[in-house]
């Protein structure tokens, strides 16, 4: 998930999309764009041949697609210190691009090429769990050679084995974060600790929830006593949808959106949200502690973004070298000090003590067992479930 920026990820995605699609959209409601994109292949089936030749030894490059403001950045030199240092020490020419604005949009952009086995222009992509699951399932990723990443042993035990990638053979966690409640402390001194607090009558029309289905629904389901991390029934999911629908219908929820809820918290248009830990933490820092974040009493969600090597990459070894660098605790601490999300690297906390002791004790960056016991990772859905639930969620939110 991207972090602070004058424009939200949603807005940036729109601006980008506008450049290519506006002419069509304006005229025929996207008909042209849909047609063109459909013509490029409707994507989805497994790649036939994944026999790419690794040319890492002759081409010393690596191309990385990541979310915006998701790597330590020096405003003065306009560069990424950890990346620059690694470029020097490794001799690799690394192209770092903030090209991921939204999991779905990014997938829509590259899936046609992946299906045809054509180079998508990246050697590392950074995508959220459920999208990573889809890539791995479809064979759009390469196996990562553990020998190429000695630092892989530093991954937090909780993240070392995940349902969508047993044994972490094809992915490696980049950052992790919580979804929970964010609120304006001046307007709501009592704080928001449950969905009842969030939907208190006084907040009517000034509440925003995430457009990321798994986070918003995961929180509502846990409020209703359903564990979203294990198999649940369709009726249980639809119950939660009904809850969301009712709150939209009666005007409690102002908007359903991605990162741009931050702008609305600052402007005062929204006073309480379902949002992401790192975002709210960053907002609080920039606004003299005006905002606070809490994991819901009934339970929040935990998501991760994962680095993967696309099946089309011909620079696997170089990509592994980059991943290895960021699993060095000292480097990971430097990144965490900037991005404020949960650091997936063991030993980074000790390194953080040297950089900033207050950050080292932050429950947002280095959560303790108590915090982790209050969050769930949304269960992996089958393709049919994903389509069905996503449709229900989109319909409930007015789309």
């Amino acid at each position, binding site marked *: 998930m991207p972090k602070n920026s004058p424009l939200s990820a949603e*807005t940036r995605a729109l601006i980008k999309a506008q450049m290519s699609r506006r002419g069509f959209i304006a005229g025929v409601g996207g008909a042209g764009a849909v047609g063109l994109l459909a013509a490029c292949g409707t994507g989805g*089936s497994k790649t036939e041949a994944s026999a790419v030749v690794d040319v890492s030894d002759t081409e010393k490059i690596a191309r990385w697609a990541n979310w915006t403001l998701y790597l330590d950045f020096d405003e003065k030199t306009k560069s990424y210190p950890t990346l620059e240092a690694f470029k020097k020490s490794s001799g690799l020419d690394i192209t770092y691009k903030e090209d991921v604005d939204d999991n*779905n949009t990014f997938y*829509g952009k590259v899936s046609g090429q992946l299906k045809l086995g054509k180079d998508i222009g990246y050697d590392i992509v950074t995508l959220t769990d459920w999208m990573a699951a*889809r890539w791995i399932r479809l064979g759009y990723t390469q196996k990562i050679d553990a020998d190429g990443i000695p630092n892989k042993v530093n991954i937090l035990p909780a993240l070392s084995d995940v349902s969508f990638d047993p044994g972490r053979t094809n992915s490696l966690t980049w950052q992790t974060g919580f979804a929970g409640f964010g609120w304006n402390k001046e307007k709501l001194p009592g704080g928001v600790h449950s969905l009842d607090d969030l939907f208190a009558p006084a907040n009517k*029309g000034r509440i925003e929830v995430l457009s990321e289905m798994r986070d918003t629904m995961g929180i509502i389901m846990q409020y209703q006593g359903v564990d979203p991390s294990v198999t649940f029934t369709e009726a249980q999911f639809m119950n939660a949808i009904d809850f969301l629908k009712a709150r939209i219908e009666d005007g409690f929820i102002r908007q359903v959106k991605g990162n741009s809820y931050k702008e609305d918290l600052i402007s005062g248009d929204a006073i309480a949200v379902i949002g992401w830990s790192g975002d709210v933490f960053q907002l609080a820092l920039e606004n003299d502690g005006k905002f606070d974040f809490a994991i819901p009493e009934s339970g929040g969600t935990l998501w991760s973004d994962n680095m993967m090597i696309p099946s089309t990459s011909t620079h696997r070894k170089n990509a592994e070298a980059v991943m290895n660098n960021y699993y060095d605790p000292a480097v990971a601490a430097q990144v965490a000090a900037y991005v404020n999300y949960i650091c997936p690297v063991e030993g980074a906390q000790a390194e953080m003590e040297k950089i900033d002791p207050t950050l080292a004790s932050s429950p947002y960056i280095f959560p303790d067992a108590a915090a982790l016991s209050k969050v769930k990772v949304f269960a992996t859905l089958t393709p049919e479930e994903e389509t069905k639930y996503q449709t229900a969620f989109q319909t409930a939110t*007015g789309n």
Partner: protein
Amino acid sequence: MAFIAAVSKRSSNVRGIKRPSTPYLLLIPGLSWLAMFFIFPLITLAGTSTQTTPAGGDTGTYVQTFRFANYIDAFSGAREQFLRSIVYALIATLLALAISYPLAYAIAFKSGKWKNLLLVLVVAPFFTSFLLRTIAWKQILGNEGPVVTVLRTLHILGPETGLTASAFAVVTGMTYNFLPFMTLPLYASLERIDPRTLEAASDLYANGITTFRKVTFPLSLPGVVAGTLLTFIPAAGDYINATLLGNPKTKMIGNVIESRFFEIVDYPTAAALSFMLMAAILILVMVYVRRAGTDELV
């Protein structure tokens, strides 16, 4: 085809052009552009719209099964947004007409040496991105913005009432964004009016209102029709104003198409909705143009 025939007929009358193939050659670039970027995608789109997911197929896998019921499903799922798009676009078009007509009239007849400057000002917003202008409205109408502050001071709005995230904001944004499309054709048709027709009207003892009603307005009708079409068509398909200025209850058909395409990866429904939107707009426009009966319009 009638058009091609007309062109070739005319060209044969023009001195100097001997080869009858010339008009066809001239049509090649335009037609091939249309074939490549309009007709071909349209056919693909039509194909996509009747596809279905095979049993056990992964997200985004579709095969052709000619399931025309896709259209019924798509429509019944988005009836509300369809209707809303048409209503919002209609209101925005009428508002734009009400605002643009006096503006275009003033520029055409009363602006004197300021005419060019005023025209540039009408077009000036085009120099900034459509999106940035819409985001600006979010600030202007926002709770801390000037409009709300003034209205609250005047007790027109309650202390907790805002303007953004509402149907009002969406229609306002649309009206603003498509205003130049209305103003320019209106100006062009008003500007073309022969002043002698207006003099004739006053010679025949028509007062200002009668002159406007019987002479100016009828002569500007082509501009009115062109302006309303240029505003209504893009407004009905717009989704950016609804995304940035609306709430979940003001989503338009463009939002539904976008979410089906990108969020759900449901290409057939997105394609079916796009087709229905095109058809709906086409029918509305045809009825309108026929009723308005402006043959000179092109």
